[in-house]
């Protein structure tokens, strides 16, 4: 199997699916001729032409609104939002329209699109090229939310997302776009939506993460191991609907849990996971579930590495929770 980075794996999935299914179209800012500001759609314009890989005017609302219309017509649009920080001009189309279309029409009009967008910090992008807005979409009923942590999952999850009957927000952790490399099957395969993966087996404490922070958790887990704490690392992969079984199983095993995410702490997905664990495994808890997250401030530029929940911030919480 060839080695690919995340960008290549996502590009591979898009190419494969566009060859297989002529209904798939890509639209967005700079996705065409230049292949996207991160080059994720590179080469697709050349292969599929301007009708299927479409540079649009500078309007996220227009991109998503038009994509919804295309979906109602029977196409399978995979719009790109250049940075997830710029998704908000389209927020009304996503939460008021896309999320509710199937429901409000009694099933007559499913509006299935996959919104691809780079997420998270790590490129010194400051307030507006670094945010992780997943919980702002998870709270809204009707959207599936996915975030892969490695090239093989990225390809398989994207193919699953495009073939899923429901709208999907597909968050691509830009910090590891090129840095995360691995073997990727060249063929057609999917990774199921709604299933987490155990990235590291452990028995003392569970850490739940996704995307770029997974690697920070693994790093912290290795450091914890040196101190005799055996950490289990769960890679959520699908952020909604959560793999609640995997979470509960792991927490029942370890009795201790830490959730890690880049987004601000308050009303982030971490809080929801803690509340769900309370509901489903309260009597198994041997320590208070903890969160290591971005702070409740805008995402800063110079102090980016102080803001992010990197391994040095995760480790103490892991140890505390394990030793509670």
């Amino acid at each position, binding site marked *: 199997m060839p080695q690919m980075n995340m960008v290549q794996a996502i590009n591979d999935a898009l190419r494969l699916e566009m060859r297989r299914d002529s209904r798939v179209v890509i639209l967005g800012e700079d996705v065409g001729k230049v292949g996207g500001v991160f080059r994720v759609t590179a080469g697709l314009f050349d292969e599929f032409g301007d009708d299927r890989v479409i540079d649009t005017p500078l309007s996220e609302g227009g991109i998503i*609104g038009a*994509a919804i*219309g295309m979906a109602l017509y029977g196409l399978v649009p995979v719009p790109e939002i250049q940075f997830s920080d710029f998704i908000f001009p389209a927020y009304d189309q996503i939460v008021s329209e896309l999320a509710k279309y199937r429901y409000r029409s009694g099933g007559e009009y499913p509006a299935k699109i996959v919104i691809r967008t780079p997420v998270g910090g790590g490129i010194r992008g400051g307030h507006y090229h670094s945010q992780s807005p997943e919980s702002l979409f998870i709270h809204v009923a009707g959207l599936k939310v996915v975030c892969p942590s490695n090239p093989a999952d990225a390809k398989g999850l994207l193919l699953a997302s495009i073939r899923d009957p*429901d709208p999907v927000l597909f968050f691509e952790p830009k910090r590891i776009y090129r840095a995360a490399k691995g073997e990727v099957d060249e063929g057609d395969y999917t990774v199921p939506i709604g299933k987490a993966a155990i990235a590291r087996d452990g028995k003392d404490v569970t850490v739940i993460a996704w995307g770029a922070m997974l690697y920070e958790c693994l790093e912290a887990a290795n450091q914890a191991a040196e101190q005799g704490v055996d950490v289990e690392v769960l890679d959520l992969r699908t952020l909604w609907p959560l793999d609640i079984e995997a979470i509960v199983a792991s927490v029942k095993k370890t009795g201790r849990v830490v959730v890690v995410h880049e987004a601000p702490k308050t009303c982030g997905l971490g809080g929801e996971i803690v509340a769900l664990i309370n509901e489903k495994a309260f009597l198994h808890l041997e320590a208070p579930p903890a969160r290591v997250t971005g702070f409740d401030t805008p995402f800063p530029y110079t102090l980016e590495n102080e803001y992010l929940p990197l391994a040095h911030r995760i480790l103490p919480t892991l140890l505390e929770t394990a030793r509670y």
Partner: protein
Amino acid sequence: MRPAIDTSAYGIHASSTASERPAPSAARNPHDTEAPDVVKVLREGDTLDPTTDPRVAPADVLRLYTAMVRLRLIDERLTALQRQGRVGFHIGSLGEEASILGSAFAMRDKDWIFPCYRELGAALLRGMPLQRYLDHMFGNENDPAKGRQMPDHYSWKAGHIASVSSPIGTQITQAVGFAWGAKIKRDELAVLAYFGDGATSSNEFHNGLNFAGVFKAPVVFLCRNNGWAISVPTERQTGSATFAEKGIAYGIPSVRVDGNDILAVIKVTQDAVARAARGEGPTLIEALTYRMSGHSTSDDPRAYRPEAGLEAWKELDPIARLRRHLAPQKLWTEATDAAIEAELEAELKAAIAVAEATRAPSLDSMFDDVFATPPWHLVEQREALKKGPRPKGH
């Protein structure tokens, strides 16, 4: 300790305080329709302007007349049902029937319609069954929207009617995407997108027209300029002299039409469909008309506009104007309206009786269609709800 619930308001309530307001503006002078650029067909007397006449077959003209009268009667009945507390809400089209029915008539069967909320007439003209509509209005178990949406938020895929949404303007961009999708697939069809004058201020008006202008999507944008967005008059909506000229900003040809002249509306819409069919892209139509009633059953317009302004518009009533055209040709007699009313009355009575007697949607149904298949959390929530107690009075 638990206060009674206030279910009275989606919209405006009549002002209780008498106030010394500056005289409210007229918001669209009826004489605007006399401007030279406004397309008209019906002339006083029974003649038509031969340069613009779309030459609609007499049987079709009569069908449209009937549809206008029926639509007005249906509005009246729904309003009465709302006043009686039997239906939660209704938003009618009094005075705007010609704009709605004329434009819908001009679209071909294969074409699609993206309504705002005030174009029931378009759906009915396409054949949406009255029973389907009333089941929706009562939000009962047979409502195709499964009782999930407010009244007048229907959809009807078989009739190529998209799903009505409350947020203003959202359907405009979607209509453009739909039409653009057809164009990408090399399917020749046109899409009619309805919206009001207020909607021209929305983000989505801008996005929709901009994308349509760039990608030459086969869309007919129909702006019902009825003078008001709830209590806000058109002068407060835009600094431009007309809504039609907004097309210039997007490279979209546009036209103003006398929206109370159904033949003129048919003419300009047919022209727009022909442009779309020739691959020339979108057209913006501004139909000059007037919202003769309140915004909806929740609104009392006396709080913000003078009754006087209405009088001039009553002269321009689209039904009366078509009647004045039909009568001399003996296509209309006093008996015509009575017959229409009698027939409709029977249909309505039956449909209302059935709709009202049909029970509410099941608890289960509340959890369907959020996703294609309910995930674990919705299954859990559904089962918990079904096991638990029901609210008082259910």
